[in-house]
């Protein structure tokens, strides 16, 4: 690799400065502030505060409801990531094989991407609404008395289905371009060796898609953990009640609705640690098994 030389030793740092400033102002400073606030119980108006040490953390971790939320978040993340990835992969493989009118198919499969999460949530809640949802009437034919907002798992189902629907196009685009990057020569060589298309896919194409898949896995986990907030808020109509919520939504509920600054800061610190750990695990453990070239 060619080594780039700068004429002045300070120049690279100067060039990095705008980026670093943004990171400092919008990430490091608020993160530091959250860590500080997590050790206090504070009057939201800023008139009083008590240093409570690790009490905010122990209150959270001994709260049965917080643990239920944590387990649900894990479950939800696995479900959303798995189905968004697998359905998108299936669609990409099929769309890749289409010869006539492929552009139309591909556009149709992608355009959900343009919908904002709250809008996706609204569309979903209209379909599954307790009073007016056509999907509810449809499912009633199969004996499923779906009650979004009343039944915990029915609400979870709708939250997952909207999140998956919204995420499929992103994954689809990446998988499709990944598939098109698989060299023709390798495919043809494999076709000579093996007749079974399914087997060729799993033993040749799929490993070659691994870099794309690994990248998408991270993106999808992050999406399910954090970016589904808008969908969840719309489905719950701002009132969680006895419905599933994710950890990020709980930070919002306690911090922004409930003005418990210390408690919600401690929750976000826990999330920060989680994300940090997740990133290390992903890059250390998984990346070793993925071949990039």
């Amino acid at each position, binding site marked *: 690799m060619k080594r780039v030389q700068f004429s002045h030793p300070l120049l690279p740092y100067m060039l990095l400065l705008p980026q670093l400033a943004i990171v400092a102002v919008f990430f490091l400073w608020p993160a530091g502030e959250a860590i500080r606030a997590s050790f206090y*119980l504070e009057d*939201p108006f800023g008139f*009083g505060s008590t240093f409570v040490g690790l009490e905010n953390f122990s209150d959270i971790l001994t709260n049965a409801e917080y643990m239920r939320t944590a387990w649900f978040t894990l479950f939800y993340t696995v479900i959303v990531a798995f189905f968004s990835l697998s359905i998108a992969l299936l669609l990409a493989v099929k769309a890749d094989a289409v010869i006539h009118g492929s552009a139309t198919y591909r556009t149709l499969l992608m355009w959900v991407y343009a919908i904002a999460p709250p809008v996706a949530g609204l569309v979903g809640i209209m379909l599954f609404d307790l*009073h007016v949802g056509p999907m509810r009437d449809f499912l009633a034919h199969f004996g499923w008395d779906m009650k979004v907002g009343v039944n*915990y798992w029915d609400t979870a189902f709708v939250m997952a289905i909207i999140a998956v629907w919204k995420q499929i196009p992103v994954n689809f685009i990446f998988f499709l371009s990944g598939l098109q990057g698989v060299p023709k020569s390798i495919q043809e060589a494999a076709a000579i060796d093996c007749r079974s298309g399914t087997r060729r896919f799993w033993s040749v194409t799929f490993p070659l898609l691994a870099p794309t898949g690994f990248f998408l896995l991270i993106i999808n986990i992050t999406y399910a953990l954090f970016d589904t907030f808008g969908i969840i808020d719309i489905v719950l*109509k701002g*009132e969680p009640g006895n419905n599933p919520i994710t950890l990020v939504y709980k930070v919002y509920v306690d911090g922004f*609705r409930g003005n418990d600054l210390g408690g919600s800061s401690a929750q976000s610190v826990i999330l920060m640690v989680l994300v940090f750990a997740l990133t290390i695990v992903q890059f250390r453990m998984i990346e070793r098994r993925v071949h990039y070239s």
Partner: protein
Amino acid sequence: MSFRFAAAGAVALATLATSTTVSFAATDIAWWHAMGGRLGEVVNEISANYNASQDVCRLTPVFKGTYEETLTAGIAAFRAGEQPNILQVFDAGSATIIGAKGAVIAAEDLVNASGTKFEIEDYIPGVRYFYADSEGKMIGMPFNSSTPILYYNEEALAKAGVEAPTTWEEFEAIAPKLKAAGYVPLSQSHSPWIFTENFMSRHNLPFATNNNGYDGAKGTKILVNNDAIKMHFGKVKEWLDNGLYGFYGTGWADNQKPFQEGKVAMWLGSSGSFGGLLKSTDFKFSASQLPYWKSVIDEGAQTFIGGAALFAMSGKEKAQNDCVANFFSYLTSADVQYTWHKETGYVPVTNAAYETAKKDGHYDRFPAAEVGIQQLSLPAQDNTKGYRMGFYVQVRDVMNREYGKIFSGETTVEDAFKTIEAEANKLLARFEKTSG
């Protein structure tokens, strides 16, 4: 031609000159509120009328979203030193804003300082002390005040051949008839507010220690785990299982909708829902007071107000504070209160406004519009002025969650109230430390 031009020009200039003088001399005050939709339009009309009524103060109302969003925006602005003059804060947020010593100027002090004598007796009994401190000084100016009442579909009741119930015992007697007539007899839109907070008030039961929390956050414990309310929720669950009660989730509108559609015969909602119901229903409906258990109390006691109050934020110049006081006086004047009452269904907060509404024949035309204020005007008792508890938004979240679990059969009434008590007390203990 040229003369007409000159005249027109002169008039235009004069208008411009007057309007600029007015806007320069006027003191600007801002009002952050959470009134959307039709309510927001009425707020804008009131503000415009106020601005037209005098030329010293100019009020600008700003819609800030839901109650929670408005409070959070107000807090953020306060910390940045950019708070509005008036902030609308809802019932469950009152402990937060009143607990923050120095964030607000008491409405009573503000009005007195501006030279007008404040008389708490001018206000109807049910609204006097909810937003007051432990000495009974009014901190927040009650604005959109409502109380839970029972709405009923007159056609449905006639079809079943029953009268609206005054007690829950009567409800148990008529509910099967309504069910037989093809209706879900009852639904309800806010379990913490209607079936918990006002349940305590209606039955004159203490809701928290320390004088229902008014004497300060220190050591305040919730008294929600009592036999009367457990009996009530046991019954509600029984009604639900027998098809005598409908539960459509935690959201307000989800439970109101089946009543508007004529599927549910009776609905417990806010007296402030009256205006909206008039527009959205095509059947005849009326209202009666919130039912109570005869087995718990002989005569149902007064309920207290829900809704929100206006708080004058501190850190503003005297001229602006005087304008806020002036606006409060305008807002609580009989005519303005009557307009607000008529347009929205929220109760008029002063006795004078109530008299005006009576004289004008408003209640002859709409008897249901008087139910809320009658219920708020019942004689006050020990536990009827309200409650003051911190982190109360979270306490309500816990209640909603546990009630949802009771209704879905995931937990028992006994366990649910144990959990609510434990989690609420934990939250109250945490809140106590925020002011330390």
